[in-house]
């Protein structure tokens, strides 16, 4: 049963091949049996899941149930869930229970989607390896000594280990696409503003966007249909009709213009990864797409600009965690300053502290112009690169991350090496564009991701390109060794 895609589950539930309760129980059993190995969940909500499944079964029996009714998924622990702990993988929020649902959680609730639990992640989504979680690292189902990527590593590992058929995730600089690549999954980060940020704990507000980790592009399309909505509670959410993302999945790619940026194939890219991307290009040519060389000349500035803007925003976003109203509070503070200092020192991990410090520095008097203002200028240039490129192509293609999954501890001592993990994904967040990663083969028995970047609100086109690739290849059907 855990081999089924979301599309197959939807069909099976309709046909009464199985009930939501059966599917849900099956996944809960697998989580209970296997997740000790992967550590992909922070909280498993078995009771809630079974209640929701029973309710979904009743709706299905009554007819007129929404498409996704009864399908179980997992939520990244960055999304607030009423009555269930939302920790953001931080000691700071270990005991935090939100009195509201994130809009995307609410959307799925309305669709009758069942919540299996809350997945592990890098603390406050800051990391590319899931090693910064207060609840311990997540193991990559493909190679147990390797990282699953981050920050949505728990969501990725859970789906790759078939502990959930799909999971929600969030992407600030690559946090959906890089784990998708490292765990052999499909991961989509929609256009900034497509999906509400209400109830998603902020890392860097101008970059954060919720999305999906799933086994196939078709599943991503089905799930995005319900995740995306206009939400007046998020001022940056765009009031724009949500199309049916499954409508164009089977469209022919004949005449699709694919741009390949030369800057994405430079130094630092694993040659085997590069080869798989080249092979994928040939697949697209065989599907009727035309390949064009494009240039994104400011690519090399994306990581430095990001590591000014994202920390700057996070330094303010995380100020609310002060031990005053909720979250971790140190014991016996002797005065206000002591309360702040110890609560925050104890509550936050090293990477979070590093980024708060970097951000506060970049915004401080005398440095603002040199760092923050300059980074914003770079951001505009990077966006313009894409706008220019999309004058002549429909989709941009390249690697998702420079190399396959790496071993635990191999980059933790060198933050910059870790930051370079997101070298190909960060620019799309800075530009606000949608991006997607799909599996395109294995290197050393570890998955490699192919990244597709679309124009603003062209999620449908991206999913179409991804689905057609998956119709022509079987990389997405490969499971991690040992996962039956």
């Amino acid at each position: 049963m855990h081999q089924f895609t979301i599309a197959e589950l939807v069909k099976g539930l309709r046909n009464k091949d199985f009930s939501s309760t059966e599917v849900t129980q099956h996944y809960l059993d697998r989580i209970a049996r296997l997740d000790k190995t992967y550590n992909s969940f922070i909280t498993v909500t078995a009771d809630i899941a079974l209640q929701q499944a029973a309710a979904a079964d009743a709706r299905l029996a009554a007819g007129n149930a929404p498409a996704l009714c009864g399908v179980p998924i997992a939520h990244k622990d960055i999304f607030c869930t009423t009555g269930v702990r939302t920790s953001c993988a931080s000691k700071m929020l270990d005991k935090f229970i939100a009195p509201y649902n994130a809009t995307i959680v609410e959307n799925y609730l309305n669709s009758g989607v069942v919540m299996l639990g809350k997945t592990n992640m890098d603390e406050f989504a800051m990391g590319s390896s899931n090693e910064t979680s207060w609840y311990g690292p997540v193991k990559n189902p493909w190679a147990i000594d390797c990282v699953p990527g981050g920050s949505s590593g728990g969501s990725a590992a859970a789906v790759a280990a078939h502990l959930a058929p799909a999971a929600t995730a969030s992407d600030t600089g690559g946090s959906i696409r890089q784990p998708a690549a490292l765990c052999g999954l499909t991961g989509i980060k929609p256009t900034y503003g497509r999906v509400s940020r209400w109830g998603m704990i902020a890392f860097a507000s101008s970059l954060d966007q919720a999305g999906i980790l799933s086994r196939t592009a078709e599943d991503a399309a089905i799930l995005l249909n319900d995740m995306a909505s206009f939400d007046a509670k998020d001022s940056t959410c765009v009031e724009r009709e949500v199309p049916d993302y499954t409508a164009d999945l089977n469209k022919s790619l004949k005449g699709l213009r694919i741009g390949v940026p030369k800057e994405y194939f430079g130094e630092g890219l694993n040659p085997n990864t590069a080869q798989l991307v080249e092979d994928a290009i040939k697949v697209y040519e065989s599907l009727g797409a035309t390949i064009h060389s494009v240039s994104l000349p400011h690519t090399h500035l994306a990581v430095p600009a990001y590591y000014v803007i994202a920390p700057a925003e996070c330094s303010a976003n995380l100020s609310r965690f002060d031990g005053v109203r909720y979250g971790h509070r140190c014991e016996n503070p002797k005065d206000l300053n002591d309360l702040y200092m110890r609560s925050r020192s104890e509550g936050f991990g090293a990477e979070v502290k590093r980024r708060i410090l970097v951000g506060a520095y970049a915004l401080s008097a005398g440095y603002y112009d040199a760092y923050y203002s300059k980074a914003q200028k770079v951001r505009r240039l990077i966006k313009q690169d894409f706008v220019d490129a999309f004058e002549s192509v429909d989709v941009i293609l390249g690697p998702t991350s420079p190399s396959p999954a790496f071993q635990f501890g191999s980059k933790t001592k060198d933050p910059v090496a870790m930051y370079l993990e997101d070298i190909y994904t960060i620019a799309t967040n800075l530009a606000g564009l949608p991006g997607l990663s799909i599996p395109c083969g294995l290197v050393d028995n570890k998955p490699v991701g192919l990244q597709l970047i679309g124009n603003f609100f062209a999620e449908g086109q991206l999913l179409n390109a991804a689905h057609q690739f998956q119709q022509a290849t079987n990389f997405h059907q490969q499971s991690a060794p040992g996962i039956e």
Partner: protein
Amino acid sequence: MQWETVIGLEVHVQLATKTKIFSGASTAFGAEPNTQACAIDLALPGTLPVANEQAFRFATMFGLAVNAEIGKRSVFERKNYFYPDLPKGYQTTQLAEPIVGAGFVDLELGEGRTKRVRIHHAHLEEDAGKSLHEDFAGMSGIDLNRAGTPLIEVVTEPDMRSAEEAVAFAKKLHSIVTSLEICDGDMSQGSMRFDVNISVRPKGQEKLGTRTETKNLNSFKFMEEAIALEVERQIDVLEDGGKIRQETRLYNGDTKKARSMRSKEDSNDYRYFPCPDLLPVILDDEYIESVRKQMPELPEAKRARFVEQYGLSSYDAGQITMDKFAAAFFEASTKISGEAKLTANWIMADLGAYLNRTEQRIDQSPVTPELLAGLVVRVKDGTLSSKIAKQVFEAICNGEGDADTIIETKGLKQVSDTGALEKIIDDILAANTAQVEGYRAAAEDKRAKMLGFFVGQAMKASKGQANPQALNELLIKKLNG
């Protein structure tokens, strides 16, 4: 040495919106602590702000009222600092691109003196909560009901040269925001709070002296006192050869003392940057015009109308229109009595004094526009002398009924009846034959002075009810024989 005082103000005006600037929680004053603070106000994780359109409408009204350019693009920024009553750890405010640009306010200072005070800008921002340091046994309590209440902070140029000008500006601002109905103007509840920047310099010197900022003054009286005290302190320091330290000061209205709160060196680096949760707000001409059309009449316009329509002097009209409730009272009362000038005088003099003394607001005055009109009518038609009228007014204040009832029950009608007056005068002349002789023997130019004696006697005999004019005429006639 002659010193010149230089004053600039920063005024926080609480906007009377129904809900908070970035959340749907109520802004009503006086609720139980933390009952009007929602998840957004508490800065729970994952919550997001949505800007309140009414706050923009009110700020736009203010901008138009002070002749300012309206910022067609305004941007919220985050001002970062830690304080327990600041839930997010930053205040959402405006810095580089505020809603209201440069403008000005013209003041009338009496005796025909005028003054223009330039507004540097005014920006929208959210208020913080309150820290309560009493009743918690050494701990502090936090009340976040006020957190997120919309404010406009009005920043002036350093154009004021005395406490008188600063207070006149503050009063004018108060009258503008209350006339616009964008602020309830209740200073005791913190609806308007003043930060006063003060420096002194030798008269004739162009360069500004080092300034201090006295924060959070919440009455005109305290503002006046605090300025006087600080100016005196600065002059003393400078005359003793000292230097003024740039600092923030607090004035205690109870003890009448001020103290330094922090020096500039201790001040925060607020690390402002544009708030990524809120997009720039764009106001087009059409929006601004629609706001302009909905604006209530401003004090300035009302004053001009009162001069034109009621024939009041510019000064009187200015006084009356300073308070929109006084202006409304005036118009209501005048409509009944038809006597604008007299009504204005009564409002500014006796009624004003009475309300001040009893600490009542004119819109809640027990002396209603109808009651005042009843009195004014009886003054105008000569039933009451101005002296007796004051007695009747006191009786109205005491709730003894309307003017006619009081005149009737107390028998206070002015005696203008010639027969009655003649009787009184004849009695007095008969009883004071020596004085009558003296008067008649005196030269013409001395007589006027001697007349006073007879008037006094006659008034006394009539218990003050004699019509002075009729009495005078009749006396002169009789004395001249």
